[in-house]
């Protein structure tokens, strides 16, 4: 059956995903009914996980392939709209899904630097890069660098940068999927990580990019429904209008009133209280340029049928990403309003110890994490909270200022905070899991494909036949995935905090050679290679120097800061460094050959099909 479907799969996309959406809606309704007739909560949560992983596995197996171009670029047959959805899922990580609203909740206006930074970069992708990379017809980003800049040196530097930005990132995704799985399945984190790993491998191993594309489309649908539903719910409850993005203006005003009442020092909409203006704007810059340089995003645009579709596809990608990102501030506002309401409506604006809601204790008592902090202690039991608060002189109850929620629990806990039923809680969990898996799959392919296509096929064994190449690709994919899972299992705090660095690293190491490679014919091999090294080097130097100092220990006093720039924005030094070095060195080295100049000319005109004619 699988084979008879395949031939006309792309012709029937509308029908196939229509059935899928209907089935998914039916499943959610079934869960709602089940919770009403008293099916145990735990069963519903397990059913969500099992059903979604099951469907991803089904798609992954149906999309298995033995064709190299299907494995690497989904046969270049993905229409713009579907590639947009896949890119949306690829892009929105577990952290975006789980943490974005929480960041906005805590930081208020300053958190919007992430919303801006993680959307505006797509303009750069559409205008400067995607159509040209598509025209070139490479399988990977280092493949483009290697061809444009004369061979293996540029290819290798590209692989190093790719590895530096993608591997920490995938480790964090596996970690996030493990946390969500352990939370919702009620199993130990050490095993839950492997549930995440299994979820990742079923989508990617048999079918490479082809399978990942079609599962990412399915995952996008799950994650966007899971994200929008609670926000729509809260908007309807508060204002009777199911469009949270329009109504939360009223919530913002209500929050401002609560802030006065509760004497909150940091107002939600007032800028530059958590970040200096300089850090706010440099962060936007680094996230945007980083977006336009991350290999797992760029390679999604290799999969469209034409250059024209690649451009349009960037628009669709941003549209689908926008749906989540313009909802996140609404989500944050509704959650904050609900939470502040508990205090604003309490006597003396203090929440009585006897009135502490169950969700605070449930989330607070999760082992190994401090998600809810009250009066400076982990919120494990009413007695512990009461003792700590009374120690601080708060009798009978505690004020809003004494409550701290971890960013990462806002989205996952909001359904329980707002009193939504278990079938919504399960849906949100499935959405977060889909977000983590889809991003992990994209990253896994970016890393493993660079190893199998660029290192193995292009550098080690250019004579390898199709079968061998695919075997190597799949073996490397499994190895990378297992390595990430084993690393995630150790809960490496440092690595998880390094994820935010990925954007600066990618921006500094890859943006200049990619953009100049298309837009400035005079860019020479030596210029690009030294430019990449300079950008990557400066950024890593600042990151390590700023966070650890040169004894590689945090907080020993030898850390330094330039102009007060935060580590996450270190690309602000690396990006200009890469451009300057590339341009200066290029001007001092002989111009690229006539052949290379013609190569760039062909890159610039959509007509004429792929330039790189892939063998097999």
């Amino acid at each position, binding site marked *: 059956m699988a084979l008879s479907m395949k031939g006309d799969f792309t012709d029937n996309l509308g029908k196939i995903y229509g059935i899928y959406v209907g089935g998914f809606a039916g499943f959610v309704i079934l869960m709602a009914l089940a919770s009403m007739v008293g099916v145990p909560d735990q069963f519903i949560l397990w059913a969500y996980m099992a059903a979604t992983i099951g469907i991803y596995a089904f798609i992954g197996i149906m999309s298995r392939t033995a064709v190299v171009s299907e494995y690497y670029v989904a046969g270049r047959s993905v229409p713009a709209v579907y590639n947009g959805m896949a890119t949306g899922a690829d892009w929105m990580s577990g952290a975006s899904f789980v943490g974005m609203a929480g960041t906005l909740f805590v930081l208020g*206006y300053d958190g*919007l*630097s992430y*919303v*801006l930074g993680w*959307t*505006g970069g*797509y*303009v*750069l992708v*559409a*205008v*400067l890069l995607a*159509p040209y990379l598509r025209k070139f017809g490479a399988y990977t980003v280092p493949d483009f660098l290697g061809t444009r800049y004369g061979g293996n040196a540029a290819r290798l530097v590209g692989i190093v940068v790719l590895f530096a930005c993608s591997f920490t990132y995938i480790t964090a995704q596996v970690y996030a999927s493990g946390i969500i799985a352990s939370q919702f399945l009620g199993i130990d984190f050490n095993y839950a990580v492997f549930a995440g790993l299994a979820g990742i491998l079923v989508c990617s191993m048999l079918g490479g990019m082809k399978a990942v594309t079609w599962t990412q489309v399915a995952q996008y649908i799950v994650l966007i429904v899971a994200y929008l539903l609670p926000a729509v719910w809260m908007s309807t409850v508060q204002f009777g209008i199911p469009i949270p*993005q*329009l109504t*939360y*203006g*009223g*919530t*913002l*005003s209500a929050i401002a009133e609560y802030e006065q009442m509760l004497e909150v020092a940091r107002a939600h*909409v*007032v*800028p530059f209280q958590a970040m200096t203006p300089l850090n*706010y*704007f440099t962060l*936007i*810059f680094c996230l*945007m340029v980083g977006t336009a340089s991350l290999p797992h995003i760029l390679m999604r645009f290799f999969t469209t049928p*034409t*250059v*024209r579709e690649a*451009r*349009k596809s*960037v*628009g669709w990608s*941003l*549209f689908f990403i*926008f749906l989540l*990102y*313009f909802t996140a*501030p609404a989500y944050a506002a509704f959650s904050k309003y609900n939470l502040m309401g508990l205090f604003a409506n309490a006597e003396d604006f203090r929440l009585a110890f006897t009135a502490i809601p169950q969700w605070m204790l449930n989330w607070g008592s999760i082992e190994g994490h401090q998600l809810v902090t009250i009066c400076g202690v982990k919120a494990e039991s009413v007695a512990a909270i009461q003792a700590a608060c009374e120690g601080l002189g708060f009798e009978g109850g505690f004020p809003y200022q004494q409550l701290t929620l971890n960013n990462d629990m806002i989205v996952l806990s909001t359904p329980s905070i707002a009193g939504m039923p278990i079938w919504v809680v399960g849906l949100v969990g499935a959405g977060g899991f889909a977000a983590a898996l889809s991003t992990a799959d994209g990253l896994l392919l970016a890393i493993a494909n660079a190893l199998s296509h660029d290192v193995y096929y292009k550098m080690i064994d250019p004579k390898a036949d199709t079968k061998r190449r695919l075997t190597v690709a799949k073996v490397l994919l499994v190895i990378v995935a297992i390595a990430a899972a084993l690393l995630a299992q150790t809960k490496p705090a440092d690595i998880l905090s390094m994820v935010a660095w990925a954007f600066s690293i990618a921006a500094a190491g890859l943006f200049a050679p990619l953009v100049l490679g298309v*837009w400035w014919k005079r860019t020479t091999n030596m210029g690009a290679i030294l430019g990449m090294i300079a950008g990557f080097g400066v950024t890593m130097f600042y990151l390590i120097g700023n966070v650890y100092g040169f004894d590689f220990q945090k907080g020993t006093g030898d850390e330094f800061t330039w102009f007060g720039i935060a580590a996450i924005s270190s690309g602000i030094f690396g990006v200009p460094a890469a451009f300057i070095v590339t341009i200066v060195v290029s001007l001092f080295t002989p111009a690229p050959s006539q052949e290379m100049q013609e190569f760039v*000319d*062909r890159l*610039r*005109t*959509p*007509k*004429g*099909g792929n330039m790189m004619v892939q063998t097999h």
Partner: protein
Amino acid sequence: MSEKLPPEVAEAHWNKTRSLMITALLIWAFFSFFIHFFVVPLNNIVIAGFPLGFYMAAQGSLIVFVVLIFWFANRQNKIDEEFGVAED
């Protein structure tokens, strides 16, 4: 491979492409950075509960980005067709 374009056609095509790129990036820079320099005064204007400065960062600029990309894709297509370098 297609036949080679006459150099003057290729150059004219690229000049137009480049000016479109510059226009798009100016709009991008305006809504990514410039407008947010004025968040404090803009926040004094409140529409439907939204302080305008906050709104621009939370929604306004994002809508502009989405529209900008579709507009750009459309314009670039027209340029490609005008010079006969669009895909068949």
